[in-house]
């Protein structure tokens, strides 16, 4: 029912913007990864595979990538362990308080990332709240060093940040489950626990996949938490990229890593989307 002019008017401007500010930059990313930097710190537009060879040959890159993936995996698992039961509680057991509790879950989501990472830094330090508290109640005598400037701190902080992200799609898919299915399951002899395993969990899998993907992908590419709390042992792949665009001035190499990351993320999204479709029964 909409005229061609109308449809053109709504399609062209966003299309242009997306082409200029999304498509073109990704294309540039791709190009840069094949260029190189001269000793005089000038970017040379000559085409070479040297960057990718470097990534493949030098161990540090793959090692850091795997470490990053391992950190991201832990964040994903912890977020799911924290988020799923809470989402389930909210959807099935919260009753009148569902509204209020849902708001309470959303609020930390929008409080500044920086603020929350900083807060953990103050808590986990050797003079921080946690250590002084533990010493105050005589659980420990010395400050625990591993709390800060370690992968532990990064995992903890990122879990804190991404648990609400993980919870929301799980909650949405749980809410979509018609309650008469739960009643039908009880009617047919299944206890609440059996009902959970056979009916509720399978139907919530799309939400779980979406939430897990979020937590994993965003953690993988994070560079702020490692910079603040990671220390030397907590460096992640994005930190390498940041330094290549900063002090270690090698944009092409940085672009190569970024492009690989982009590829990896897109592959994960594709995988997740297909799995979600398989598990969606609408």
């Amino acid at each position, binding site marked *: 029912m909409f005229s061609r002019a109308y449809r053109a008017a709504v399609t062209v401007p966003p299309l242009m913007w997306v082409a200029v500010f999304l498509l073109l930059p990704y294309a540039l990313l791709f190009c840069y990864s094949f260029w190189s930097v001269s000793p005089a710190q000038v970017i040379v537009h000559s085409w070479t595979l040297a960057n990718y060879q470097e990534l493949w040959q030098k161990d540090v890159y793959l090692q850091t990538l795997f470490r990053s993936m391992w950190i991201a995996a832990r964040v994903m698992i912890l977020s799911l362990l924290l988020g799923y039961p809470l989402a389930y509680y909210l959807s099935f057991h919260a009753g009148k308080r569902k509204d209020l509790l849902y708001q309470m879950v959303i609020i930390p989501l929008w409080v500044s990332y920086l603020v929350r990472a900083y807060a953990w830094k103050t808590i986990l330090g050797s003079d921080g709240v946690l250590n002084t508290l533990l010493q105050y109640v005589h659980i420990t005598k010395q400050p625990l060093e591993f709390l800060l400037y370690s992968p532990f701190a990064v995992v903890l902080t990122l879990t804190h940040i991404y648990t609400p992200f993980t919870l929301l799609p799980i909650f949405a898919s749980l809410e979509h489950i018609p309650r008469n299915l739960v*009643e039908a*399951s*009880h009617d*047919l002899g*299944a206890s609440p626990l059996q009902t959970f395993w*056979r009916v509720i969990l399978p*139907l919530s899998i799309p939400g779980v996949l979406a939430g897990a993907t979020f937590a994993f992908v965003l953690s993988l590419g994070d560079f702020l938490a490692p910079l603040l709390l990671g220390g030397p042992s907590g460096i992640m792949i994005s930190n390498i990229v940041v330094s290549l665009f900063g002090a270690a001035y090698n944009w092409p190499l940085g672009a190569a890593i970024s492009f690989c990351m982009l590829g990896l993320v897109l592959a994960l999204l594709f995988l997740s989307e297909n799995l979600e479709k398989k*598990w969606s*029964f609408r």
Partner: protein
Amino acid sequence: MQEASTNEFAAINQAPTLANPLLSIRNLAKSFSKNPVLRDISLEIAEGEFLTILGESGSGKTTLLRIIAGFETASSGEILMEGQRLDALPPYRRRVNTVFQNYALFPHLTVAENVGYGLRVAKRPANEIAERVEKALAMVKMSAYARSKPAKISGGQQQRIALARALVNRPRLLLLDEPLSALDANLRRQMQVELKSLQREVGISFVFVTHDQEEAMVMSDRIALLRLGELEQIASPREIYARPATAYTAQFIGHTNLLHAEIKSGIARCHTLAWPAALPDGPQLFSLRPESIRLATGAAGPGAVRIIGKIQRQAFHGATDLLQIECTDGLALSVRTASREHWPGQSDVALEFSPADAIAIRESLEKT
């Protein structure tokens, strides 16, 4: 002669007690935040009977069903099945199964997996499950769809699967919550017949909830009419039609004419009508079904009551016509008679009925 006794009235609201009832509901009441939905319901269900709980929306019929199934707890009263307290058990321990109004089929399981769900939960051996599922699907004529997903089959087909899923567990009692309301008229009539014969075949007691009085009459062994949370009347379809207890029952099930009469010395008078009635003096309400009134021809039969009126409106109902007559004394009557091409408008017609067809009924009181 119209015979009526006070005994009939006294017993009408109490469900007759059965010798060995399958289910006994005693003084059941339910309120949702101070709103009473069910008040003091007592009734019994026999083995192998098809009982319909009939009522308008707000009558409490669905709530009653859900309490029997176990999805709601009653505020007071008890339910006994074969002597044991049923209401002490959670829904997954009751030998009761439900066919839900929107079928509630599990979307992530195939039709066969849906039907076998209860058996898998009960950890029956695999070959037993396969065999029983196969039989259940054959019983509802859905064998060809065993491996389909619910999303791919029609509403009527989903309804059969919901039925199979419930029956395969061999419950003592099957509850059906308005299962036919989403179907179109023809399919509905077809399913009514199928459900009835299915019930005869498996011999399980069915408790069927509906708001459609015609459906109730076609299918039931007994009808329990609920109004505003109370049991208005419980009887077989023919009984409830021929001898309604209250004005509400008379009007809800079928059409009727309500005659407000005054009884004096054994004669009931309503406008210019008079007929013998062996009832105490005083005001009395009567129900007179439209089909009991005939167009008078020739001489009046013995004891027949006659009146003259003019035809105001006529409605064509296929096999019959429903005529609205205004009588000479101002009384308005509905009359059902065989269809005619042409009715003489505004000329006088004579009507007659037998006093035995005027049933004495109670007023239906407004309830708080």
